C-alpha cells in the first residue's frame, strides 16, 4: 500500500538540524526535502551533510526543492544555465524522488536576492513557464512540480492560480505542491472559504503538501484585518492543521507531507521543542488518514516522452523589462502612494499586469516582501 511520508524541509542550517536531530534519532522523519540551490554561500558541502542526504537518497526518500531558478523571468539568465547544470550534477549524485520550484519570478538585482512575486496568467508567461519546466525536467530526468504562491495582488488572481498551475505542469506530466499555509494566507487575505478555494486547484496533481507557520503584518486588508504573510517563522497554526486533515483525503496522488520552518525561528530550545511537537502532530494526522488511499498511485508523474527543447530558451524581453521595472518600484518606493505613481508611469500601466486592479493592501505587502529580501538572506 502506498504510504504518505511525513517529512521536513532539511537544509544546511544549524538550528533546523538541531531541532530535527531528536526526530531523526527517534526515526520519526520518513523523508526530507532539500533546497539544493541554497548552498551558494558555501565553498564546500560538509561530508556529514552529504552523508545525511545520501541516507535518504539511498532509500528513495529525498526530494529536491529549488528556490532561486526564477521560473518566469522574461529573459534567460546565465545563472539559470548554471542552475540547470548543477541540478544535473546533483541528480546524478543523489536519487531525488522529484524536483520542484516556486511559482513566480524573483525580484532582486542578482540571482540570490529578492523574493518570488506573481505574474499575469497570460499565454506569453505560460509559454515561458512551460519552456523552463521542460528544461528542468531534461536536466534532472525526474518528476517535476511547482508550488502554489502565497501572494496575490487580487481576488481574480487567487481564483485563477490553480488553473494556471495545472496548465503549466500538464506540459511535463508534472505535479503541484499544495502549500497549505500559502492557501491559508489566500483564505484570510481575500476572505474566501476553504471549500470555495480548494476546488480551484487540480487536486489529482498534488504529490506534495507543505505546512508551516507565518506572521501577521501590521498592514490591514479591505475589511480591516491584519495581512497574513508566509514567513515560516512561527508554529503551525491550528487552522493549518485543520486544512491538512481536510485536504489529504482529496489528493489521491499525495506522497509527501512536509513541515517547513526557517532556521532563524528555531534558535531557542522552546522553539525547537515546538517544532518537534508540530511534526508529531502532523505525522499523527498523516497516519490517521493513510488508510483511505488506493493500492497504487494513479500517476507517477514521470516524463511521458523526452522533452523536445528548442536550442535557445524562450524569451520575451518586453516582459523582462516590465519585471525589472516592477522589481525596482517594489524595492525602492517610499510608500504606497509613491509606488502607485511610479506604476502609473511605468511600462506596466494599462497592460495585462492589470496594476490598476491590484488591491492597495497587497501592493503594500509586495513592497514589504521585496524590500525585506532586497539584499538577500
Amino acid at each position, binding site marked *: 500500500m502506498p504510504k504518505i511520508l511525513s517529512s521536513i524541509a532539511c537544509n544546511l*542550517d544549524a538550528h533546523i538540524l538541531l531541532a530535527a536531530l531528536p526526530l*531523526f534519532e527517534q526515526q520519526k522523519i520518513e523523508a526530507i526535502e532539500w533546497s539544493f540551490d541554497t548552498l551558494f*554561500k558555501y565553498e564546500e558541502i560538509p561530508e556529514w551533510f552529504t552523508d545525511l542526504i545520501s541516507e535518504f537518497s539511498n532509500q528513495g526518500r529525498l526530494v529536491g526543492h529549488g528556490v532561486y531558478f526564477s521560473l518566469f523571468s522574461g529573459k534567460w539568465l546565465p545563472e539559470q544555465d548554471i542552475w540547470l547544470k548543477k541540478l544535473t550534477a546533483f541528480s546524478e549524485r543523489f536519487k531525488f524522488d522529484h524536483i520542484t520550484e516556486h511559482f513566480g519570478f524573483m525580484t532582486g538585482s542578482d540571482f540570490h536576492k529578492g523574493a518570488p512575486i506573481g505574474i499575469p496568467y497570460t499565454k506569453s508567461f505560460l509559454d515561458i513557464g512551460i519552456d523552463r519546466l521542460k528544461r528542468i525536467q531534461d536536466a534532472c530526468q525526474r518528476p517535476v512540480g511547482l508550488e502554489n504562491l502565497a501572494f496575490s495582488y487580487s481576488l481574480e488572481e487567487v481564483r485563477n492560480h490553480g488553473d494556471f498551475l495545472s496548465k503549466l505542469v500538464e506540459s511535463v506530466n508534472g505535479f503541484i505542491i499544495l502549500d497549505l499555509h500559502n492557501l491559508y494566507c489566500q483564505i484570510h487575505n481575500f476572505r474566501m472559504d476553504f471549500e470555495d478555494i480548494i476546488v480551484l486547484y487540480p487536486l489529482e496533481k498534488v504529490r506534495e503538501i507543505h505546512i508551516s507557520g507565518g506572521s501577521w503584518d501590521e498592514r490591514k486588508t479591505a475589511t480591516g484585518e491584519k495581512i497574513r504573510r508566509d514567513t515560516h517563522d512561527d508554529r503551525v497554526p491550528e487552522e493549518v492543521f485543520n486544512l491538512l486533515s481536510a485536504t489529504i483525503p482529496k489528493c489521491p496522488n499525495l506522497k509527501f507531507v512536509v513541515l517547513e520552518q526557517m532556521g532563524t525561528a528555531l534558535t531557542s530550545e522552546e522553539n525547537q521543542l515546538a517544532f518537534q511537537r508540530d511534526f508529531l502532530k502532523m505525522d499523527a494526522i498523516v497516519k490517521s488518514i493513510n488508510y483511505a488511499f488506493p493500492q497504487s498511485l494513479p500517476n507517477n508523474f514521470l516524463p511521458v516522452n523526452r522533452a523536445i527543447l528548442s536550442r535557445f530558451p524562450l524569451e520575451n524581453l518586453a516582459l523582462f523589462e516590465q519585471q525589472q521595472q516592477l522589481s525596482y518600484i517594489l524595492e525602492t518606493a517610499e510608500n504606497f502612494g509613491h509606488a502607485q505613481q511610479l506604476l502609473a508611469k511605468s511600462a506596466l500601466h494599462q497592460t495585462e499586469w492589470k496594476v490598476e486592479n491590484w488591491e492597495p493592501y497587497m501592493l503594500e505587502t509586495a513592497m514589504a516582501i521585496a524590500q525585506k529580501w532586497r539584499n538577500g*538572506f
Partner: protein
Amino acid sequence: MKISKSVLQAIAVAIVVTTTISACANDDVSPEKEKATKGQKLDPCPACGMG
C-alpha cells in the same frame, strides 16, 4: 526512517562545533567539491518562507 548512528553523531558534533567560516556569495559549490566540516559556520538557510 532509520539513519546510521555514525551520521547522527557527525551531525550532532557538527552543529555544536559550528564556529566561523565566511559565507561567500559565489557559485563555487558543486556535488564534486566537499570535505568534512571543521570549524565551519552554518549560515541560516532561506529556502521557502520568502513571504
